[in-house]
């Protein structure tokens, strides 16, 4: 899962990015509205965390422009908790909002819910054969036994599971699992797929030669 954070307060931006990376997300950052809009426009994010008060282009403007071209779920960070601000955000196309000062667990939960909803899932648990993926606890169990997956491997499993039945291309996987600082020209992806197959069964991820991967 790849997330973009647009926030102008550097200390807040760095700690949010760090916390989300530790949660297993690939995280990109932008510290003004123009940069944020450019990235949101050009990359496929699973969610955007967008501050309202931003230099160069404020959060409302980024939201309006983004909504003209993309459906990426947006979580607004607002310092104003008056209902007219919340209404404005939701009407403007935001999917959810968090009022500053916020608790990190709440931000995490809201992001999970946003991503789940955008994949049309209502439950936190996805079951595929004897494999059970709990997106809230971020773990995978097989036949009732908890499997030990690295965050990257978990992200791969979750992304394929949320797009169950679809063929997911390598480009898509690179876009959603690696952030702007990762080297996308490596064969890291093949290593992760192979490791997941070892842990969850060789048939768990099918390879569509020339297209990508798929969970049936």
């Amino acid at each position, binding site marked *: 899962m790849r997330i973009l954070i647009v926030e102008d307060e550097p*200390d807040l931006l760095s*700690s949010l990015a*760090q916390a989300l990376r530790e949660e297993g997300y690939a995280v990109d950052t932008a510290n003004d509205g123009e940069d944020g809009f450019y990235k949101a426009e050009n990359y496929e994010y699973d969610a955007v965390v967008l501050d309202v008060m*931003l230099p160069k282009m*404020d959060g409302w403007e980024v939201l309006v422009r983004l909504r003209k071209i993309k459906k990426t779920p947006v979580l607004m960070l607002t*310092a104003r908790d008056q209902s007219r601000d919340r209404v404005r955000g939701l009407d403007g196309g935001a999917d959810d909002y968090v*009022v*500053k*000062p916020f608790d*990190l667990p709440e931000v995490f939960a809201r992001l999970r819910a946003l991503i789940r909803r955008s994949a049309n899932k209502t439950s936190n648990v996805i079951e595929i054969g004897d494999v059970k993926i709990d997106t809230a606890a971020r773990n995978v169990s097989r036949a009732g036994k908890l499997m030990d997956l690295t965050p990257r491997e978990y992200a791969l499993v979750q992304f394929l599971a949320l797009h169950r039945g679809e063929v997911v291309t390598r480009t898509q996987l690179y876009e959603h699992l690696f952030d702007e600082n990762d080297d996308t020209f490596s064969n890291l992806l093949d290593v992760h797929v192979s490791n997941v197959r070892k842990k969850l069964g060789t048939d768990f991820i099918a390879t569509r030669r020339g297209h990508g991967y798929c969970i049936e």
Partner: protein
Amino acid sequence: MKIFKSIKWRLQIWYGLILLGVLVALEITAYQLERNELFDRVDSELQRRFSPIADALRPHHPGFGHPPFDHPPQDQMPGDFPPPNDSPPGEFHLPPQAAALFSSDDPKKFYFRIFRDGNDIASSTNAPSPPTRTTIITEPGHLNRPPNLGPTTQTLEPPRRETTHILPSGEIIIIGCSITSEMDQLKTTTMVLTVAGVIILFFGLAGGWWISSRAIRPVENISATAVKISAGDLSQRINTAETESELGQLAAVLNSTFTRLEAAFAQQKQFASDAAHELRTPVSVILTQTQTALNRERNAGEYKQTVEACQRAAQRMRRLITALLELARLDAGQEQMKRLRFDFSKTVGDCVELIRPLADDRGVKVSTELSQIEIEGDSERLGLVVTNLLNNAVQYNHDGGEVKVRTKLENGMAVLAVSDTGQGIPAEDLPRVFERFYRADKSRSSGNAGLGLAISKALVAAHGGSIDVVSEENVGTTFTVRLPATA
């Protein structure tokens, strides 16, 4: 009691009492007039019946040389009367014509009774059986009174009217009649008057209520509005359209007070909300930094970073709180400004030297053109204003830009002008730059809360001066401070 505290009720009660008093007086008068008229009529009837009796007595009484009455009845013949002199009571006879006046068929039942020397010598058949007035009338005192004593008339029970005549010869003639019909008529009159009075009182009170309601309505209007306002709805206003009287002026004054109250409340609310808003970001930083750090074991370097970030957030909050307190003190007018005479240009020069390292960092050239001006005030606080203006001029300048600082004496005012060659302030933001928490660039990465210019303005105002701004986008901005110079 609550009722007596209501103006409307008190008005109504007073009005009702006065109306009642007037009505009662009028009705008593009307009743008396009616009664007098009725009794006068009865009395004249009684008087008419006196002469025939007196005439019947007179010719036979010795020592009666002249007629006692001016108008002896014309239709009576003296020869018709039997000789009653010294005869017993039964022997006194009225002539038939006179007797007809005391007929039992007459609904008024006229009667007479004649006393002589305390003895009942004659009476008509209608006369009430107990000789009511005998005791009084036969008292020797009565008899010895001068004979020309006029008749006395009084009303007795059962309802009748009696006239008592004392003749010079000593006879007492009582003539009376029943006044039941008169009393009935008076009763009817009383009833009519009472009913009319009650009706008038009712309509009077209703009218009074209507008038006092109308008079009081603006007051109720004002009070209802005031209640809504005290309940928290400050947008309420008194409808002055229908209150044109003295109360209208009151309503207008109250309305303007409410308007100012509402504005003050809105400002206060906005200020509190802005202050809270400014605190949100540093608190968010501290929360996310610490929550992230505590999520798992970190090495010393990571902890240090977290602590440093928290320190920056705390310093930002401290700056904000200091600024808020400064504003609050200025607002409350508690701030004691020192009143010392000093050279304003020297203060400005010192501030320029303070800011120069920052300007050099950004390659901004600061030029000064200062002339000595003595002013009176707090040099430290005014230095704060100058530093703030210089700081803005450097911060919002282009790299390698220019800042010009000039002081001069103009019309008795010390004038400081700080010009920069920066990005300028958009025209729509210009009127608002002195507002609290207002920032033209909308971001808070600078760490400024947007209180600097608000504080500067308040400080300059506390010195009796003014501050204004002229700006052109992408050309530059000039802030001008004017302070009263000492002569």
